Each structure stands twice: as C-alpha cells, then as structure tokens.
C-alpha cells in the first residue's frame, strides 16, 4: 500500500487512487503517422525494471490525474508529481 503525493491533497494512501498505467508518448497525428508507428504507439507500453513514469487518479479524493515516477523494483516514488513539491 503506497503513499502517493497528490498535488492538491498531500500524501494519501494508495487505496484512494486508481491506476492509470504507464505514460505513453503523446497521441500521434493519424494523418501523418505510418501504420507501423501507429501500431507501435498503441501496443508498446513502457515496462522497465526500474523507474517508470505513470499516471494515477485520485479517484476517492479530489479526482485529479497525476503523473509520477515509481521504481518498479521497490515501489519507491522517485519523481513527481511536479505540483506536489
């Protein structure tokens, strides 16, 4: 059960949050993106052993989505969210 820093509410327990998955690159423009690149954007999800940038939603709190860096080996939050600092 992690302790997640919400930019608005401060450190709150993980059970208040919903997981939003790792952050992907921005959605490309379909008009100018080759099919293989589009499929890559769709299907290649970052899954590193180590820090990963991911999204969480303070669902049972203020409702805001936040982005932080979590080390998948230890669950240590090693970066962000920017507004929380």
């Amino acid at each position, binding site marked *: 059960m992690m302790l997640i820093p919400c930019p608005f509410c401060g450190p709150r327990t993980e059970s208040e949050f919903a997981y939003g998955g790792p952050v992907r690159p921005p959605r490309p423009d379909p008009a100018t993106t080759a099919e293989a690149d589009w499929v890559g954007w769709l299907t290649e999800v970052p899954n590193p052993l180590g820090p990963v940038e991911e999204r969480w939603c303070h669902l049972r709190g203020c409702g805001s*989505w936040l982005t932080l860096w979590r080390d998948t080996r230890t669950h240590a939050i090693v970066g962000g969210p920017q507004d929380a600092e």
Partner: protein
Amino acid sequence: MQNDRLAKGGRIDRTRPLRFTFNGRAYTGFAGDTLASALLANGVRLTARSFKYHRPRGIVGAGVEEPATMVELLGADASGNRPVTTVELREGLAARSVNCWPSPAVDLGAVAQLAARFIPAGFYYKTFKWPNWHLYEPSIRKAAGLAAAPKSPPVGGRYETRFAHADLLVAGAGPSGLMAALFAGRAGLRVMIADEGIEPGGALLSRRLSIGGRPALDWVAETVAELEAMGNVTLLRRATVWAYREHDYLLVTERAPDRTGLLERTWRVRAGHVITATGAIERGLVFGNNDRPGVMLASAVQSYVNRYGVAPGRRAVIFANNTSAYTVAADLAAAGIEVAAIIDSRSDVPAEARAAVPGLPIRAGYVVTTAHGGRSLRGVTVAPRDGGEAERLDCDLLAVSGGWNPAVHLFSQSRGTLRYDDSLASFLPGDAAQSTCAAGAAAGAMELEAALASGAAAGASVAGVMPPDTPTAPDLAYAVTPLWRVESARGKCFLDLQNDVTVEDVHLALREGYATVEHVKRYTTGGMGLDQGKTGNINITGTVALAQGVPMQAVGTTTFRAPYTPVSFGAVGGLRDGPLALPYRHTPLTAWNIAQGAVMYEAGARWRRPGYFPRPGEAMQDAIDREARAVREGVGVYDGSPLGTFEIKGRDAARFLDHIYTTVMSTLAPGAGRYGLMLSDDGLIFDDGVCFRLDAQRWIVSSSTGNADAVHRHMEMLLQTDLPDWSVFVTPVTAQWANATICGPKAREVLADLGTDIDLSPEAFPFMSLRDGMVAGLPARIVRVSFTGELSFEINVAPRHLPALWDRIMAAGAPHGILPVGSEANHVLRVEKGFLSLGHEVDGTVDPYDLGMGWAMSRKKPDYIGKRAVEIRRATGKMRHELVGIIPEPDVQIPEGAPLTPGGHRQASEGFVTACVKSVAQDRWVGLALVDDGHARHGEMAHVRLKGGKVIAVRITRPCHYDPDGERLRS
C-alpha cells in the same frame, strides 16, 4: 488430573481453574495457560498426527513456531488450523486435533504410514498428474488435509479495521522492543508497540533473569506501566505485526481487544519508522525419528517449566549445539526434573556453560542419532559425533536446540537484505530498504544486556537523542557451532515436521535437478505450512549447503512473505461484510418496487433494480412475458434512473464529443441528439451512449449503467492528461436526474393524460430529441430515446419528484393497462430488437463493424479515438466474430454463453450465444450470437454444442427480430 503440574511457580493463576475438552475428553487447566501448557500439565503427550504419513506427533514449541500440533476450535470459537501453543485457554474451550480421525491415538489414516516409503517428495505431482491434479485433489485433501473451514461465521462477535499513523511502530514487546518504545516514547514520539503474546515480556517470561539486580519481570511490569501512562504510546497485546508492505505500511491484527465483543481488530498502520524487535526462534535438530512426541524445543521446555509451571517430562536429555540449552538444563534441574545428560555436538563446551549446570553430566562431541518410542519418547541413542560406540539413554523428554534464528521475517518482507553470519550460524538483517531497523535478538543481540542496549539505541536513534545507559543484565554468553543434520542418523530425519519433509526428500529433489532452495521448497513443500518453516527452514538450507558443498550464503533463504503467522479471513475483511462489502445503490423507487413484490436484482454498478413483478402464484417466465407484451401491445413504464448521465460544458465540448464518439455530434442543433459508440484507442467498443445538445456549449450525455464510472474516468483522463488545453468540464449527474420511461404504442396517450405543456406530436417532438417543460405539474426534461424499440418518452425529474411522478403515471396509465417493467422484460425487448448490451454482445473484443454498426463509424471525421485502429485491423481481412440473430430449431431455450461449433462437433468453437429470450413478438425463443463470418451466413444453420455434448441447431438471421425498419420507435 494435572499430574505434570509443578507444585509451584509459573505465571498461572492456580485459584482460577478452567475446564476444557480436547478430542472429546474433559480436562482442567488454569488461567494463564495456553491449550498446549494445559494439555502437557494433564500428561497429554500425543496430540496430533502428521500431514502426510500420519505419524504420531506431540507439542514441540511454545509459541508461533509450533510446527506439529494444529487444532481446530469448536463451538462459538470455531476456527481451523490453530497452532496449539497460541490458543489461550478459557472456560469451556473445545478443541480437537486436525489430521486424524477419530483421535490421534486411534488414527485410521495411520495406515498411510505403512505406505510411507512410497510417498517421496513430488509423489503427488508425479502420480496424480493424469488427466489432471484437480481430479484427485479433493480426496487427497480429505485424507491428508488440515481442518475444514468453519461452516458459519463466529457467533457473538465481529471484526473491524482501524487505520493508524505512528512515528514509530515497534514490533515485539520483549526486552529490546520495550526499551525502544520507552526511549522513543519519553522523547515524545507517537509510538505504537505491538506484541503477539498474551502479556508483554517476550522471552523474559520464560527465563529466570535479572535486570538491574532485580527480577527481569519486575522491570517489564514497570516499563509497561510507564508506557501505558504515556498519552503518545499505544501498547497492543495479543497483536501480531504480520505484514510489512511498501512505504512503511504494516498490518497488525489484535485478538480480542478491549473485551469489546470484537473478535479481532486489524490495524493498518503507516509508520514513520519501524523497529523489528521480533526476537529469535529456536531451531530443531535433525536426527532419526526427531518427530517423536516428547522431542521438544529446549526453549519451549524452559517456557513450560518456568512460565506455566509444567513438567513436560520426568527424565530429560538435552541435545544442543550451543550454549543456550545450558540455561534450560539448569532450570529443569532447579524445578526438580532429572537431567540424564546434556548431549553437545561441540567438542569444546565453554567453561561458562559448564559452570551453569554444576553436577549435570555433559557429553561433549556427542550427538543423538535416533529417538526411540512410538506414541511417546522412551529413550535416545547417543554416539560420538565422529563415530564410535553408541549408547542408549532412557528418557521421556528430549529438549533440542539447534541454535537460534533471529526472526528476520518482517525485515525481509520490507525488502531489506539478509546476510549470513558465520559466528551466529544464521541469517541476520543486512541493509534496510525502508525506514526499518532491527533490534535485540532479531538483530543478533542474543544476550539480554546486549538486547536491552540494542533496543535503547534503536529507540533513541529514531527519536534523535543520545543512546541512554542501560542496566546490567547478566546472561550466559551465546556460542553456537552449526549442526545442520546428524549424518550418522538412523530413521526418518524430519526437516519440516508440518509437511513431513525429510532429509531424503531434499536429497531426492536435488538429484532430480531442483538445485536452488526456492525450487527445493516447491518440490518438497518444505517450509510451506502454517508455520512457514520457522523452526526448520534453516536446516533445509543447511542440508542443501552440505549436499552441494557450498556456503550457506550461497544457498540463501526462501523469500519471507506475509503473513508472519496465519491470519483469519475476518481480520482481513474487517467490517466489509454482508451488505457493507459492496453497498447497493438505490433509486427513489426501491421501496415502491419492494412493496409491489418485485424480485430485486443487482443490475450493473451495484444498482438495485426490479427484475420482474410477479403476481401471486405467477411463474417468472409468465411475469416477464406479461410485462414485455404490455410494452409491445399497450404501455409499460420502467425506472431508468441508473443510466449513467453526464453534463458536458465548455467551448470545446462539441469537439470533445466528436473526438470520443464514432458519430458526428458537433452538427446537432439544440434539442437534438444522436447515438454514438465510444471506442478505446485499440478500436474496440468501450461504451455506447446518446448525446443531446442543450445549447451551443452544453450537452447531456448518457453512458451504459455499469460503465458510468469508467466512462467518467476515461473522459477525465483525456481532458486532464492528453487534452489539457481543451476547455471542457464534465459533471456526472446520474444522481441529479431520476427518470421514468413510458414506452409502448400508447405511451403518448398516457403522457398527454399526465398533463404537459410540451407539444408531443411526432412533428414537433421527433425521435432523438429533447424537450424541457412541465409534466404532471413537475419540472421535467423529456427525452425521446428508445431502448425497447417502441415509442418511448424518458421523463427526467429531480430524484425527490420521482415517486410522485411514478404514482401519477401509474394512475394515468391504469385505463391503458400500464404495467411496471423489470430488467428481465427490458432484456427481452432489447434482444428482440438486436440492441447491443455491454457485457453481452460487447465483451471487449468487438468493433462496430462486427456488430453491423459500420454506419456509426463516421467517414467524414478525419480522426476520433479508435478510428485508425479499426481501419488497420479491418485491412488485414481476417475473419471476425460477427453479430447475428439466431432462431433455435426446435424452439428451445439456449443458455447464454453456449458455444457454437462447426456442425456441432467437438471442435474449436466458431462463436457463442450472447443472449436468448422468449420473444413475445415472435412467440418463440430467439437469440443473438457472435459467430465467425456471421454477416455472410444469414439463412444458414449453425450448431450450439452444450456441455455434455447435446447439440441444438439454430438458424442464423439478421440480428433484429422485430420491426427492422424502426417504424415503431419513431412513431
């Protein structure tokens, strides 16, 4: 008769006798006893049968480490698989041993012993793998299993959960834990200290030691009193810290707290710092028949003698590889129990240890090779460790000590590293991964004075103060030389008593290629029991190290996982029980529905809805037919309030809806609406809904009931992360609007009779439009959508107005024969129309074309979520499951989810039935199915293959079984 109760001594209250039964026989113990100490006081030595071989077993330990005797509590305390040593005695307690029937003395399962040589490690995996293990599992579990779960929850009590925050959580209230809590508490920290025992004191309760020149337990009492007087300290008794999760989050379960009627309370603690003062656990020694009743851990023997005033035997032999057992021998002698010999595997016994046992015979450099006796110990064979003449010694108690393992469980759960310490011959905490430090014996401080200093230093360090001086506390210096197993042993040598894992099993596993300790564990099941190998795992590691000729550090340990000791399901669930587990959502009509005799269902997202409204004596199918027919032929009304509803506002609202729905919304005029599919980025259908424009920048949007929360999250995530510059605000208004939907050919007449200022003519108020006005004197918003295929008016009002509106509708509709319609009839009506339902036709694998809804995929819009992925997938031309109607021939019901296979043969399926209902329009069973290449197969026959091989032929049709042109819903 408590024949084995010592005449004096012990922390029991001899003025408070307690009656209890064990395996149906009545006994008496005293307040302060555990079930184990009371049984031993009554001379009961044979208490269990082992898991696999049904060998006779006794009580081995005195605490959570107990590997051999598990009991099932009966009656009001009903619970299974409790270590006998952790059951606090109380008046009327009834218990029985697990693993044997009818009793450990007459155990019919013991015939398994005869076949024991045929049951090596991995036996079950190898023997019962065809056709699969699950075929055999139930009978094997019954034959060899532990206690069954109680049939009903405990009576007269409940469980609860509390959240807590602490600057410091101390796990364990032995000497070091108390010291740590004392100095952190004095420094003003918010401290929680939890101890699994009935009373604080830890190992001091079982020993005869002094602190600062006075009895150690006096110091414990004073320290506990000081801690309890501090407002910033919480001291929990009978409270086990059983899990150490990430970010210093720990779970502590307290048994019978405060005598409040609570059975257990689980504390979920977020700690600033954690001190694991969890002590050490003595390990057994591995020799032949080392499982006989009467072979006990030396520390347990000491505990029974000193703490409980019980003589676990009359003539004892001590077998040890370390000095701690010498204090046990001294305490036995002091209690008047004969010590026949101290068998020490070390050649050199420290002089200090010899001095502790004046006059007792010591055999240095000797080992016990085998224990004798069946249901009770009769003697042991001892021999020089390096070979030589064996000799038999008579005894009824063998106290063994294989040294001590610091209880590193919590430290390791926190992901701290462990290191093997050669001088202690054990694994010790290494580098901390969280705000954790170990103290006392758990950190390798094995003697009392060192433990006190270690605890004080840890507490002071967390508090940021200078480490205080600690009192003198003389103790025998600890020295150990490892003896992982007696190599000259004869007979079965058990490493794990609970799972009946022997040295031979480990050697077999190694021979068969299971080369690491984690593999050995899984193959042999060693260390997997309720005790998690607290006394035996290190000997498994040692046996592997000896066999492979590698150092202990290289073998390592298996992973320590939560829970440290068994945890009841009630303690995990807390108050989340019954209706509180997942509370229902109600519309304002729940009371009315129940009063009408509706059969209530959960219908998506925990909404409680009427399934159908049976009349007295009416069968379910007849009630559903009647309600569905009313809608098709006359008029019905249903409560559509649970439908997910959102108000969407902002400059970019129309653009946003175009982005998330497949159809074009931005061209709609105020008051008009359109159906759309919501896709995920991978081009699969996520939801469907209807968007109505209220004005230039305001919309009202519906989602399916069960998906409302997910749709809201989806929209918020897009707006907050991908589209932060778009000016759009989403407000969920599901609970702000309740609705009654009148549907059927006479719906317009009923609505007109209710009285409204809205022009209801089809020209003024066409299908897929919305009007605000007054209905039955109430402010209302009427929406012309249809989920039934009939003319429908969805009358939205404030929730507080819905019961009044409903009564008016029932009254106005009575002349037209209006009926309330439940979700079952609604399901029939939508299947007849081929309207899709999330979770039925939309299962996360289909795209709009599969459902014949390519028309909903805008070609005009260059981009929207899912468009590109659908195009890419369809370009491959691969065969897809496509939605079709099915008509069973003959006219029978088909279970939802039934597979279609080619020709009905036993082959891979080509699709499945998503719904099958008794159609009132067709007066026969009709259904929907997703089937390979279905759109090209209209008119063909296909075949449903049921479990058991029964085949039902179905004719494939288009998915709409009623009014395919939609004239009725537009009327």
